[in-house]
């Protein structure tokens, strides 16, 4: 506990911006977990009399065209943001890591798998996601799969590179020459050494998943329109931007600050990482 406090104070002193980013992410998690207690209204509570109210009074961030409280919807929106972020990271790492590690261990299989990854990477990312949405249909879960597919490819590439380097390390060769099996090498040597590049990749994937999900929502191909996601809120506010510009401000700011905070944390993690792998992750 004391150690945690000490390292936190060190972080605040050395990288104040990263500390602010981490604090913002904590706020988002708090919003998501305690949404019903934090939000003063239900996310779908309609109040036609109080349509398009500017911020102030009983409505901290104003109301939308149905009289719904923007602050409450922003708070509930963080649930979806977290769900999308975690879902995309789990999918991208859950598929990309095995593909990358297997490709590095079995060069023949690796040539085939990495070629397939290259082919997927020749599709512009959003078009790949849109194509998958057409096949799977619209919905939160399908949006996670569609965005996850984009980051499956980048994750597999990075993991492949890191695993190839690790495989050539003297201690891995030593373990192999002493008769260690593939499973042992993977679980004892390759995966543990991959944790920090994966954490960096996870934070960037989480950040870009927010932007991808917002774009899908905006095009009307992401979360169903009744779900209070930040992207949907922006899509709905489009018609009212000249009359009620605050509707554009808050959900957009949440997306930007979430992605920015995650990028800051990712950059900070990368700076702390083993320099041999540093150039491989992030963009």
């Amino acid at each position, binding site marked *: 506990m004391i150690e945690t406090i000490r390292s936190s104070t060190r972080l605040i002193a050395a990288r104040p911006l990263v500390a602010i980013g981490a604090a913002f992410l904590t706020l988002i998690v708090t919003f998501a977990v305690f949404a019903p207690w934090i939000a003063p209204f239900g996310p779908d509570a309609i109040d036609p009399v109080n349509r398009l109210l500017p911020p102030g009074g009983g409505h901290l961030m104003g109301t939308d065209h149905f009289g719904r409280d923007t602050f409450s919807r922003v708070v509930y929106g963080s649930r979806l943001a977290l769900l999308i972020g975690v879902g995309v990271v789990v999918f991208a790492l859950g598929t990309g890591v095995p593909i990358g590690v297997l490709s590095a261990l079995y060069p023949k299989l690796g040539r085939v798998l990495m070629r397939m990854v290259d*082919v997927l990477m020749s*599709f512009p990312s959003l078009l790949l996601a849109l194509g998958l949405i057409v096949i799977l249909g619209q919905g939160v879960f399908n949006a996670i799969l569609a965005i996850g597919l984009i980051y499956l490819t980048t994750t597999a590439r990075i993991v492949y590179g890191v695993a190839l380097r690790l495989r050539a390390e003297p201690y891995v060769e030593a373990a192999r020459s002493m008769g260690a099996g593939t499973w042992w090498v993977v679980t004892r040597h390759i995966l543990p050494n991959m944790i920090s590049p994966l954490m960096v990749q996870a934070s960037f994937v989480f950040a870009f998943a927010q932007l991808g999900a917002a774009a899908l929502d905006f095009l009307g191909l992401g979360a169903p329109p009744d779900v209070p996601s930040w992207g949907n809120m922006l899509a709905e506010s489009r018609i009212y931007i000249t009359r009620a510009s605050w509707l554009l401000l808050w959900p*957009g700011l949440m997306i930007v600050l979430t992605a920015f905070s995650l990028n800051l944390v990712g950059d900070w993690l990368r700076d702390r990482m083993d320099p041999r792998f540093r150039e491989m992750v992030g963009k």
Partner: protein
Amino acid sequence: MGRYILHRTGAAIATLIAASIIIFAFIHLIPGDPVYVMLGDGATPDQVAALRQRLGLDEPVIAQYFIWAGNALQGDLGQSVFFDTPVTQVIAEGAETSILLALITMVWIVGFGIPVGVLAAVRQGRWIDQGLSGLAMLLASVPTFWVGLYLILIFAAGLGWFPSSGYPSIFEEGGLSNLRYLVLPSLALAAPNAALILRLTRASMLDVSREDYVRTARAKGIRPSRVVVRHILRNALLAVVSAFGFTFAALISEAVVTETVFALPGVGRTVVQSILRRDYPVIQGVILIIVCLYLVINLLVDLSYRLLDPRVELE
């Protein structure tokens, strides 16, 4: 060099063939009968049979692929179900907007990203570098459509300097002055990509400035500004050039959203509308053309990279 060109071109063609199989398979992966999905519930059996025949869905799947790919090689991407015109015509109608948008955006990206990246690198560690690097990361975290909506709110609705939506061709009334319709969209589209090029230029400049020949140049007493331009920047730009393939792909992705925000009659908006209209031949055609373009650009980037830097070898 000959072997290098051959090898790279071969790899690009192999990728294109694999990608074309995926694009072709797309129509068969959609749940349900694509003909019914495209025509809707009210279709008569005659219409269904006619469309099925037109799309060649009566043939065995493998034969279908070769017919489709063979036609595509001859420049025939099929018929749009919604417009009932050739897909190539639908794409050609959006091409002017999308190409001009991409070109203007590239001007912003290169004109802002590279000089500002150089500035940040030259002032490494100072407040101006930290400020610019922070700005770059912030820009990379902003959804392009949000930037676009704010640009509309401020410069179109508020100040009235630029039109908020649409784009009449430069060949119609107004001529080149119609390019003003593309100013705001290109700025929105440039924001995240300029940030990327800025960061890349900075990182690459710093890498190169640690090279021995840079130290030698400084030791010889060459003017610092000349060292920066002649020795560091010229070599640092290699890494930036190699990122242009990636930038192009990012531009295409974000153009889909940007063209929707600004209601531009481009290829990106055609994709979105075709998805909503379930006009699958158009989706397939656009994606095939974009993947081709992407592979050609990457090939050119690879080859020019090799010309610029003869040290690059085949892996």
